């Protein structure tokens, strides 16, 4: 069983991520990023596990380049963790594995 992640973009980022009451995880990915695509099904499983506790979003970086640069995200995969509109944790590039995402989630909630 898996679920699709909530798709965010430059239009709804403020409202859906920054303005969210629940803690948010944002998975920055791109269609050419092989590690991102490999990890996505695992993140979808985690989304089920954390349903109601953490809001899982994904953002296609290639379609939202300016927003990414404003967020200082210039590598894929990157995960940003938000609480009350603030970035409280970040995983990027080589740091990203299924394990590191799981670990950070545990300390996040």
């Amino acid at each position: 069983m898996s679920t699709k992640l909530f798709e965010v973009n430059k239009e709804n980022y403020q409202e859906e991520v920054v303005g969210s009451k629940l803690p948010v995880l944002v998975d920055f990915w791109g269609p050419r990023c092989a590690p991102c695509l490999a990890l996505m099904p695992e993140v979808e499983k985690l989304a089920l596990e954390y349903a109601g506790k953490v809001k899982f979003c994904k953002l296609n970086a290639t379609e939202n380049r300016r927003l990414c640069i404003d967020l200082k995200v210039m590598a894929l995969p990157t995960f940003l963790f938000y609480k009350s509109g603030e970035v409280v944790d970040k995983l990027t590039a080589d740091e990203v594995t299924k394990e590191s995402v799981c670990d950070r989630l545990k300390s996040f909630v």
Partner: protein
Amino acid sequence: MENNYDLIIIGGGPAGLTAGLYGSRAKLRTLLIEKMLAGGQIATTDHVENYPGFMTGSGQKLTEIMENQAKKFGTGFIMAEVTDVHLAGNEKIISTSQGQYKAPAVILAMGTSSRKLNVPGEEQFLGRGVSFCATCDGAFFEDLPVMVVGGGDAAVEEAIYLTRFAEKVFLVHRRDALRATKVVQERAFAHEKIKFVWDSVVDEIQGENLLERVVVKNVKNGRVKEIAVNGVFVYIGFLPNTGFLSGQVQLSENGYIIANERMETSLPGVFAAGDCRQKLLRQVVTAAGDGATAAFAAEKYLEELR
């Protein structure tokens, strides 16, 4: 029982995937453990044209076929990182983030990781300009100047890839000639967006929020200059992913696994395949060859054990 196999393969690059194909076709209960991306390093490059039978295409496409082929014959896959192994004796124990797995035969196919520059600024700008994966991050640098460091195949091929996005690509190499394959060199020399910076090494990476410039030193005359770029892609060689073996099998001075023609390591029942092995040519085709040999040798070993 369910964590017991005939053959465990660590690493899901071309070497591991081929070993999986051969192992499962030999009807061995085969498990492949991969921490992240089945396909390995080659899955992160956009252009492969030297794997015979595959004219040209992305590494991801190539390894997707390899993965499906291994799965078709029954290779089991799990996504987990191997953190510790116990390889002596008849029962090998493989500890991962997802639990323990056991088998009488193991193939080590962990490949290599990118060597870092180890200069000031590299850590700080990781994910904000410093990258080890052009296909992952190249698109962020549309119309911006970038730098590639290195002079081998990976460096030059990725420099060519980056010209799709970047305004300009500086290729910084510590010698005055490239090591890359001749056809690849020719393509790079002919490309108007690629500018070569010879005999030079990176001294420091600088910027405010994002990467803005790189300090480069000429190794011949000691002269230092700043080059304004927003991205630095590092391809200065590789280090074998053999740390967790903690010396249980014989390694070369540089940490590569020593194996013979049958891919046997210094321990019975433990085989090595692909880039993590001490060898002359580290490519997909040789990794696949190693994987096939290792699985075949493992099959023979298991027959004798019975």
